[in-house]
């Protein structure tokens, strides 16, 4: 019994000693293996391609030099993975804000405003506890000019003894005044790997 316990303990210690240590990953020098699922590199690549194409198209350059106001509409996750589409959208929002051409409203959204404080701050209008000159006035919120919507699609295929996973990042920018999609983009990301790897 003691001998068995000693062998198990020794094996456990050996396995633990051989395990790779936890470490930080530098995205600019990440030599780690590619995963079949979507990882941060895929979102970064898709967002980068979309932003470069959008800026180059001139669709978000206001003729008057002002910034467009954009609202984020629905981004559908049609993949087998549970992902937060903000991993894609936030990168696009940040890049567009930095470009000086687009600002995103957090006051409007399909499921209510992203930041409910826009509404809560206006409920202070009748409160005697607050200096009314510091309370947001009526008619100060800006309505969006543009709407960003999209879809992330996943398709799996069997290729000989390998598995091929295709991801499509599709985005549309709609001019809300006319209801026309003034810019559209699709970034495909294709991965092929061993059949025993799981892509969901």
């Amino acid at each position, binding site marked *: 019994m003691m001998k068995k316990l000693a062998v198990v303990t020794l094996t456990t210690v050996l396995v633990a000693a051989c395990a790779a240590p936890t470490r930080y990953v530098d995205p600019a020098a990440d030599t780690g293996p590619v995963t079949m699922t979507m990882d941060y590199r895929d979102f970064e690549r898709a967002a980068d391609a979309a932003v*470069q194409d959008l*800026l*180059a198209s001139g669709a978000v350059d206001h*003729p008057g030099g002002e910034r467009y106001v954009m609202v984020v509409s629905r981004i559908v996750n049609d993949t087998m993975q549970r992902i937060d589409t903000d991993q894609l959208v936030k990168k696009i929002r940040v890049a567009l804000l*930095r*470009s000086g051409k687009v600002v995103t409203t957090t006051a409007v959204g399909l499921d209510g405003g992203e930041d409910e404080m826009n509404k809560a701050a206006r409920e202070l209008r009748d409160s005697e506890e607050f200096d009314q000159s510091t309370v947001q006035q009526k008619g100060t919120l800006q309505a969006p000019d543009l709407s960003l919507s999209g879809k992330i699609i996943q398709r799996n295929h069997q290729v000989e003894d390998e598995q091929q996973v295709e991801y499509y990042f599709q985005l549309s920018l709609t001019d809300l005044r006319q209801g026309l999609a003034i810019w559209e983009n699709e970034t495909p990301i294709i991965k092929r790997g061993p059949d025993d790897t799981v892509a969901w």
Partner: protein
Amino acid sequence: MSRFFHTLITVALACLVIACAPLQPEREYVQRDDLKVDPEVRHSLSVTELLQSRLEQPGGGSLLQIQFSVEAFEDTDMEWAVTWFDEAGMVVPGVGEGYREVRILRNQVRFFMATAPHERVVSFQLHLREDR
């Protein structure tokens, strides 16, 4: 005569002050090049062109856009990234810092484009490295 001594003392004092001033270390910088190709991939491909132009925007501004082409002598996996700089030489961030992996087949010529993330970008550095 006294005026001569006065001048002499002033000059001597000035020399002393200069001599005692802390020496500024000499810094040598290597001029930043538009194109940086790592030796690991240099033997298997060559950059056949690197073009740049300003893309006019409807609002009157313009964005720097580059295009480069790569020809491979053998099947090559490589990565590339562009770093953007403003007038003062400061980095203008884009979306992330990752490299794009590409595969170029033997005798194939591929063209790639990149657009600056802001109108204040005036220069860039394109980096090609082996796929790791």
